[in-house]
């Protein structure tokens, strides 16, 4: 096979062709990256001097991985991360408010942040939604420095446009609070529809603006919307189809048409029941492929959906195997999942989710070495 570069490698697999090897994603999105402490330990392990991490996902303390790491392990992707929740404003009590008015609080050991207040928690009517101060979709803040970064990597690597967050279901839950929003869906449907329509309209404006400005450099656009739990969906498939799917469909159509790029969706957990819906509304690639969740086992996913959607993730379980497995167990799982997902392309390797701070650095290195050993076609 003639030499291909990273950009071509990822393009080929997304088109369900088999390139020279399965492409590798390290941190092109804030779900395939690593905790800043892991990056530091990797630098130390590899004998490099650590310049400090570029924390992009502040609430997970996940980094835009340093180029040294990406080059060393041979990553094929690069993130083009719009500033999604910043600026954060610090409050007197040590919490932070982001651009959406969401309150965030650090965990006691500062390893992650959680939501502690929700700007629409006390909304009771549609006129409350009208009064809410939406962020500015045209803020230049989001794009600062990105054009230079994109130009540096365009054509060489697969550039992933990241930062549109949990655009529909997730954001509605964050703005209202999970409990209130889920009850909205059940007993205040008119309000829920109004909120979701406004969210979809905002996201369409935002994505149009960003894609117009830097879409020319981009190869893949990523959005997120977590709707699964370990064993099931948070809401019923019917409720998803009534409330969420139409708005996702409108947004994803806008993204794909304006960018001309494949769409990558991040949706954690057991989401098998709606994968056909996602394919229908234009999702080209799915992340994280949480292999430990019910119904998300690699073999049956590949059998049912192989050739219809690209599996972006699923390389190794991060709930148990990566943090606590032996080197042998880690290599075995990488190998096994690789053999299942590889055939016919449509597979990009990444560990299921961000590498958390408690994972031994030897396990991380073993994983990347196993990837390298088994990635070739």
């Amino acid at each position, binding site marked *: 096979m003639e030499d291909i570069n990273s950009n071509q490698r990822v393009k080929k697999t997304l088109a369900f062709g088999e390139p020279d090897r399965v492409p590798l994603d390290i941190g092109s999105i804030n779900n395939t990256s690593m905790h800043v402490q892991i990056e530091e330990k990797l630098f130390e392990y590899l004998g490099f001097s650590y310049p400090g991490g570029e924390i992009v996902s502040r609430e997970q303390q996940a980094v835009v991985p340093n180029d040294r790491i990406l080059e060393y392990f041979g990553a094929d992707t690069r993130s083009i991360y719009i500033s999604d929740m910043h600026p954060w404003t610090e409050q007197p009590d040590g919490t932070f408010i982001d651009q959406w008015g969401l309150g965030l*609080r650090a*965990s*006691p*050991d500062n*390893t*992650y942040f*959680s939501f*502690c207040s929700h700007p629409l928690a006390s909304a009771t009517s549609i006129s409350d939604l009208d009064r809410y101060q939406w962020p500015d979709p045209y803020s230049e803040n989001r794009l600062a420095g990105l054009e230079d970064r994109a130009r540096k990597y365009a054509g060489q690597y697969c550039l992933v446009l990241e930062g549109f967050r949990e655009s529909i279901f997730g954001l509605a839950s964050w703005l209202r609070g*999970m*409990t209130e929003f*889920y*009850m909205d*869906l*059940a*007993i205040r449907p008119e309000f829920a529809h109004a909120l979701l329509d406004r969210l979809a309209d905002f996201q369409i404006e935002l994505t149009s603006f960003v894609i117009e400005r830097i879409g020319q450099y981009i190869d893949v656009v990523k959005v997120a919307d977590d709707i699964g*739990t*370990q*064993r*099931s*969906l*948070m*809401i*019923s498939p019917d*409720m998803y189809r009534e409330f969420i799917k139409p708005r996702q469909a409108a947004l994803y159509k806008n993204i794909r048409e304006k960018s001309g790029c494949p769409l990558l969706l991040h949706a954690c957990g057991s989401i098998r029941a709606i994968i056909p819906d996602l394919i229908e509304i234009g999702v080209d690639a799915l992340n994280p492929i949480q292999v430990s969740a019910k119904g998300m086992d690699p073999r049956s996913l590949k059998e049912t959906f192989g050739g219809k959607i690209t599996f972006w993730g699923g390389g190794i379980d*991060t*709930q*148990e195997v990566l*943090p606590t497995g032996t080197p042998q167990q880690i290599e075995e799982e990488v190998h096994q999942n690789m053999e299942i997902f590889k055939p016919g392309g449509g597979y990009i390797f990444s560990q299921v989710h961000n590498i*958390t*701070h*408690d994972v031994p650095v030897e396990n991380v290195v073993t994983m990347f070495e196993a990837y390298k050993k088994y990635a070739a076609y």
Partner: protein
Amino acid sequence: MKMSEINIVKEATIAGNMEKTVEAVEQLLADGMAPADIIQTGLIEAMAVVGEKFKSNEIYVPEMLIAARAMKAGLAKLKPLMVDEEIETLATVVLGTVKGDLHDIGKNLVGIMMEGAGCQVIDLGVDITPEKFVEGVKTHRPQFVGLSALLTTTMPAMKDTIDALSEAGLRKEVKVLIGGAPVTQKYADEINADGYADNAAEVVDRIKTMSA
């Protein structure tokens, strides 16, 4: 008439219709039914059905939340009318998300199902240190301690909590139940927890089995 009225309470609770639940409860009280009976055969039985439906994916989190809301509204009408000795408790549970972890939706659903089954639940909240759990056990003398964690990085606090209970001489006084997305039966066995469930409804089954 009472039977069909009690069914109205049940069905309204299962459907998450708060207004109808309260209306039907008030009707039954007016008809002379004992509050404890309304709770047991109306609300608690309704939540048992809700639990079964949740386990089998017939309903999901929104339906469970509104059923709980309806149940609580019904309970709010009934509890003030009951003298202490009439309140039958299935078990007392001290519940919390472990140290370092701020996630609570799963824990809250567990609390809902436990209350729905007639447990007295003391929810300590999130980021609960082993010491606070020990204090909670000393104060409330529960039969069960429920530990929740969403992160692999906070799961070890479950073992720390069990160790703290042992050190305080309380381990044998309580049954420790654990749960949360990354938690497994295997992990429960490893740390000698007394039980594990992978969903909020099943926790109630564990409590009923262990209380028998």
